[in-house]
C-alpha cells in the first residue's frame, strides 16, 4: 500500500529527472567544455570511477570560453537582439489582430459562440509546419498575394516578401493567433455585461464604455495572450528558417546551425543557456500573472 503510493510519485518523478533535468545539466556542462574535432565533438566527460581526483579535474577543466566567444562575435548579440525585437513586435501585431477577433466573438450571439470557438481552435490542432508552409506559396514573388495585388492594379512589380523579416512577422502572427485570441476571449466572455449597461446609463458612449470598462477588465487575458505568443516566438526555429531570409537572425536558427552545420556543440549549448537566461524573466512574470489571476478567481 505504502509502496504503491511511493511508486506513484517515483515513476513520473524519476522520468522527469532522467529525461528533463539530467539532459539540461549535460547542456550546462558541455557549454563549459572545449570544442574538439572528434565524436562527440567536445572534451571533458566526467568519469566518476576516477573518484575525487576525477571530479576535481573535471571542474578545473570547465571554463567560460564559449560564453566569452559569444560576446566577442557580434553575430550572437545581433541574433539575441533581433530575436527579442521580432518576438516583441510580432506579439504587438498579434494583439492588434487578435483582440478585435476575440472582442467580436464575445459580442456574438450565444448560439454562434461554440462554432466560433471551434474555428479558432481548429488551426491550433492542425500541423504548425503546414500552416507555415501555406505562406510560402502566398508570399513568393509569383505567389498569390503578388498575383492579387498586380491583378487589382495596386502594384506593377511583384513585391519581395518571402525570405524577409516581414514574412517572419506574418508567419508568427498567423501561427500564434489562437494563443492570443483564446485567453482574451475567456476574460471578455466572463465579464459582467451589467457593468457596460451601468456605464451607458451613466452617460458613457459605447466607445467610452469600451475604453473605461471592457479594456481594463480584459487586461489579464491580454497579458496572458502576450506571454503565450512572446515566449515561444523568441526561440522559434521553423518560421525564420522557412519564411525568413539569410539575413533573418533568430537565436533558435543560430542554435540549430551551430549544432547541425558547424557541429560546434559547446557553442550551441552556450547559446541554449543564454536563450534560457533571457526567457526566465518573461516566464516568471507570466507565472505571477497566472497566479494573480487564479487568486482573483478563487
Amino acid at each position, binding site marked *: 500500500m505504502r509502496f504503491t503510493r511511493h511508486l506513484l*510519485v517515483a515513476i513520473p518523478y524519476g522520468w522527469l529527472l532522467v529525461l528533463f533535468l539530467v539532459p539540461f545539466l549535460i547542456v550546462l556542462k558541455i557549454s563549459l567544455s572545449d570544442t574538439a574535432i572528434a565524436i562527440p565533438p567536445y572534451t571533458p566527460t566526467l568519469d566518476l570511477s576516477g573518484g575525487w581526483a576525477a571530479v576535481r579535474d573535471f571542474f578545473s577543466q570547465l571554463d567560460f570560453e564559449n560564453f566569452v566567444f559569444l560576446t566577442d562575435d557580434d553575430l550572437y548579440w545581433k541574433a539575441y537582439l533581433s530575436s527579442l525585437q521580432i518576438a516583441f513586435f510580432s506579439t504587438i501585431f498579434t494583439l492588434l*489582430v487578435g483582440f478585435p477577433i476575440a472582442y*467580436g466573438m464575445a459580442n456574438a450571439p450565444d448560439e454562434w459562440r461554440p462554432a466560433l470557438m471551434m474555428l479558432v481552435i481548429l488551426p491550433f*490542432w*492542425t500541423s504548425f509546419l503546414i500552416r507555415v508552409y501555406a505562406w510560402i506559396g502566398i508570399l513568393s514573388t509569383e505567389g498569390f498575394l503578388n498575383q492579387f495585388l498586380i491583378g487589382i492594379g495596386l502594384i506593377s512589380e511583384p513585391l519581395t516578401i518571402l525570405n524577409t523579416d516581414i514574412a517572419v512577422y506574418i508567419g508568427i502572427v498567423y501561427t500564434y*493567433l489562437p494563443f492570443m485570441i483564446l485567453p482574451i476571449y475567456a476574460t471578455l466572455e466572463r465579464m459582467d455585461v451589467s457593468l457596460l449597461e451601468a456605464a451607458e446609463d451613466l452617460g458613457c458612449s459605447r466607445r467610452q464604455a469600451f475604453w473605461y470598462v471592457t479594456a481594463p477588465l480584459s487586461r489579464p487575458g491580454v497579458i496572458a495572450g502576450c506571454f503565450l505568443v512572446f515566449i515561444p516566438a523568441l526561440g522559434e526555429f521553423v518560421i525564420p528558417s522557412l519564411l525568413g531570409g539569410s539575413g533573418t537572425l533568430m537565436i533558435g536558427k543560430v542554435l540549430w546551425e551551430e549544432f547541425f552545420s558547424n557541429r560546434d556543440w559547446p557553442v550551441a549549448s552556450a547559446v541554449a543557456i543564454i536563450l534560457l537566461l533571457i526567457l526566465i524573466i518573461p516566464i516568471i512574470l507570466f507565472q505571477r500573472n497566472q497566479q494573480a489571476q487564479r487568486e482573483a478567481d478563487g
Partner: protein
Amino acid sequence: MRRLSPFNIVSLTLGFAFLYIPMLILIIFSFNESKLVTVWAGFSTKWYGELLRNEAFLDAAWVTLQVAFFSSTLATVLGTMAAYVLVRRGRFFGRTLFSGMIYAPLVMPEVITGLSLLLLFIAIGLDRGVLTIVLAHTTFSMCYVSVVVSSRLITFDESLEEAALDLGATQWDAFKSVTLPIIAPAVISGWLLAFTLSLDDLVIASFTAGPSATTLPIKIFSSVRLGVSPEINALSTIIIAIVATGVITASIISKRAITRRQQEEQAAA
C-alpha cells in the same frame, strides 16, 4: 447588451478569412493539374496518386504514427499519475522541483529540449531511432497531459473519493471506479493533445531521430526547404482533413457527454 457592432462583424470576417484563406488555397491547389503550384491548370487528383506511390513518405508516415501512438499513450499514463500526485498528495519531499519540472517543458524552447535530449542519448550511448523519439515526445507531452488532467482533478469533489474509501474500497478501486470515470474526458483530451503534439513536432524529432527513423514532419521540412510542391499540398490536405474530422467529432462527443451529465445531475437533484 452583447450585440454585434459593424466593427465586430468586420473584424470577425477579416480575422477568420486571415485564418482560413491560406489553408483553403493549399487545399484547392492540391487538386491542380500543373506542377506549378501558383497557376491553376485544371482539376486533377494525380498528386494524391503520386503521394501514395512515394515510399519515403509512406515510411515516414508509418514511423510518425507509431511514435505518436506510443508516446501519447505513455505520456497519458505518466501525466495522469503526475497530475494525481500534484493535486491529491499535499506535500512530499521535492514537490517544488517536481512541479517545476512539470511546468518547465511547457515554456522551454523546442531547440533546447531537442538539443539536451540528444546530448543525453549520446552520453548514455543510446542509438537514435524510433525509441529515442518516443522517449523525447513522451517527456514533453506528459507535461501537457498533466496540466489538462490536473485542471479537471482540481474541480472535482474529493469527498466522493473519501466516501468510496469509507465504504471499504481500496485506494486503487476508488481511483478506478470513482476518480477515473470522472476525469476520463480530460484524460482522453490529454491523449489527443499528446498525439497531435507528437504528429506535429519537427524540431525535437530532428534532434532525436537517427538516420534509421525519419518522421513525416522531418520529411516535409526537408522537401519544403526546396520550395512548394503539389505533393506536399496533397499531403497537407490529407492531414488537415484528418485533424478537422477528429477535432469536430471529439467536440460533438464531449458536448453530448456534458449535456448528458447535466441532465443526470438535474435528475438527481
